[in-house]
């Protein structure tokens, strides 16, 4: 039972990590608290639904295409919605993002209705047993895919020109632009990557959960908690925090109360604010 919950937590944690990594990058580089990130995750779910269930494409191709399409969409919202407020008053980013969230969530509701959509995937019926744990193949794939995507992001950020430019910008935007890094491009790229990763999470989880317009409203809040837990702008922190959150929620839901499963993350959040507001891995603000 305990081991089973840990495994379930890890799988959920992989998805949380994917969502949170993108959010912490946007937060760290552009100082935008992107509340609309959950709707991006939702769009990933709908994309995979339309591609695989409606248009009959193979599941993995549909996931890859969803990442690409939603990544492009991320570039579009960066340009249209967020660019006008760079350098504006503090917290306007949060408000404009919440406007975007309300807009997209209800836009999805109007276009695609409130009924849940289910996505079929090739391995949902295959169950793997080891020790006392049993998981469906689909869940193992989710975990593997999130680990692969996170590893790819790590390699990209540390070993490519563009990746290093993103890291440099997050450390010191003025310095980065002085040495010739084009901030406009970096912002665009950051939004594309973040949106793509959130879409990946939505697409991968779609066969396990359902797809519906408000599916992102809880994950986005949890991602915020993870971002604060890991330290704002800290990519490694977000990955570790994402897995911790998944495990905490899985154990809490099993042993304490499943009705209030969603409340645990917020209690953790308030605890972190009280004790270590710079995050578990963040540097002190002073």
């Amino acid at each position, binding site marked *: 039972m305990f081991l089973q919950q840990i495994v379930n937590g890890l799988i959920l944690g992989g998805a949380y990590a994917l969502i949170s990594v993108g959010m912490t990058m946007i937060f760290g580089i552009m100082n935008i*608290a992107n*509340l609309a990130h959950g709707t991006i995750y939702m769009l990933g779910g709908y994309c995979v639904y339309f591609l695989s269930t409606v248009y009959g494409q193979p599941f993995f191709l549909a996931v890859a295409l969803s990442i690409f399409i939603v990544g492009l969409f991320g570039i579009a919202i960066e340009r249209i*919605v967020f660019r*006008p*407020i760079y350098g*504006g*008053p*503090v*917290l*306007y980013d*949060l*408000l*404009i993002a*919440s*406007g*975007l*969230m*309300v*807009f*997209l*969530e*209800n*836009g999805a*509701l*109007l276009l695609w209705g409130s009924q849940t959509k289910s996505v079929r995937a090739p391995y949902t019926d295959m169950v793997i047993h080891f020790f006392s744990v049993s998981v469906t193949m689909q869940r193992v794939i989710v975990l593997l895919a999130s680990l692969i995507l996170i590893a790819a992001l790590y390699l990209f950020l540390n070993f490519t020109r563009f990746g290093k430019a993103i890291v440099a910008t997050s450390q010191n935007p003025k310095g980065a632009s002085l040495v010739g890094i084009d901030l406009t491009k970096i912002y665009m790229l950051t939004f594309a990557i973040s949106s793509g990763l959130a879409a990946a999470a939505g697409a991968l989880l779609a066969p396990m959960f359902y797809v519906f317009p408000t599916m992102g*409203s*809880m994950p986005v*809040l949890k991602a*915020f*908690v993870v971002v*604060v837990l890991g330290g704002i702008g800290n990519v490694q922190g977000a990955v570790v925090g994402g897995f911790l959150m998944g495990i905490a929620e899985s154990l809490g839901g099993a042993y304490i109360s499943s*009705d*209030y499963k*969603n*409340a645990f*993350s*917020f*209690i953790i*959040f*308030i605890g972190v*604010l*009280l004790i270590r*507001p710079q995050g578990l891995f963040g540097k002190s603000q002073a």
Partner: protein
Amino acid sequence: MIRNPGKNLLILFFVLLVFLIPVLIKDPYYQHILNVVFLFTISVYGLNIIAGITGQFNIGHAGFLGIGAYISALATNSLMLSFWLAMPLAILGTAVFGFLIGYPSLRLRGVYFALTTLCFGEILSLVFENWIPVTGGPTGISRIPAPTSIRLSEGISFAFDTKIGFYYLCLIFVLLSLYINRQLLKSRLGRAMLAVRENEDLAQSAGIPITRTKIIAFILSMMFVGLCGSLYAHYFRFISPVSFSVPESFRQVTMLFVGGRGTLLGPLIGALIFTALPEVLRSIEDYQWVVYGAILMVFIVFLPKGIVGLIQDITETLRLPRNGNREQ
């Protein structure tokens, strides 16, 4: 500022007009809409203190409204208290929650407070829906009594179980909120709040205790919210978790922004527009949330000062050249 007798007369005229509205508008449907406008006005005035004047965004506002409503409803339905005791209880209870949430999160700068209120709003929604023995779960609490009537002496009494009676009750509180917001903006405390909004570093170096100022602002804001929650419960006589969900919080933030944050009339105008418009334009009901989202984005980018701010800017640009000529 120059004292302007004409302006005072105008205000007096408007107050008189507002007092006469129920006599002029006989249709109970419109009276109901006005009551709802007033209810939200009180709530948005509360939001104005923390978000508009102090610059700290509470985006779990509706959850706190729910605390006031549930406390008041439970006090009358379970404890059999009179409305006039339940209302102060709701104000006090909401303020206590405000302190508990504000204390950890307002010490920090930036988005922490906004995120905490958002998370807390979600927790409250869960509690309202799942704590069935107390909150009644998704079905909520019904049969909440209307405010009991006040008897001044033999033959003179005020009843609040009619729409008109409730209108005057709300009106008094709206005018009170307006007055308190106005006095606050003139006071030392209010100016400290504005200073915190504009620049925390500068405010701190001028000797303003920023954390304390923010917490006081939040508690004050919560008192209005508690009041509104109580009135809400006893006007609709029925409450359920849907009315206090996170989207409702965004609606009220939109009201404040579109009206004009940090201004005196902004909350009233915002509440009027966003309560009356959906009623008038029934046909767009399905689209209303999409429209809210779009309006919020458009206002933040193009008109961050809201409608009141826009009017102020226009009147100022009209006035400036005249003053310039006089000085020459």
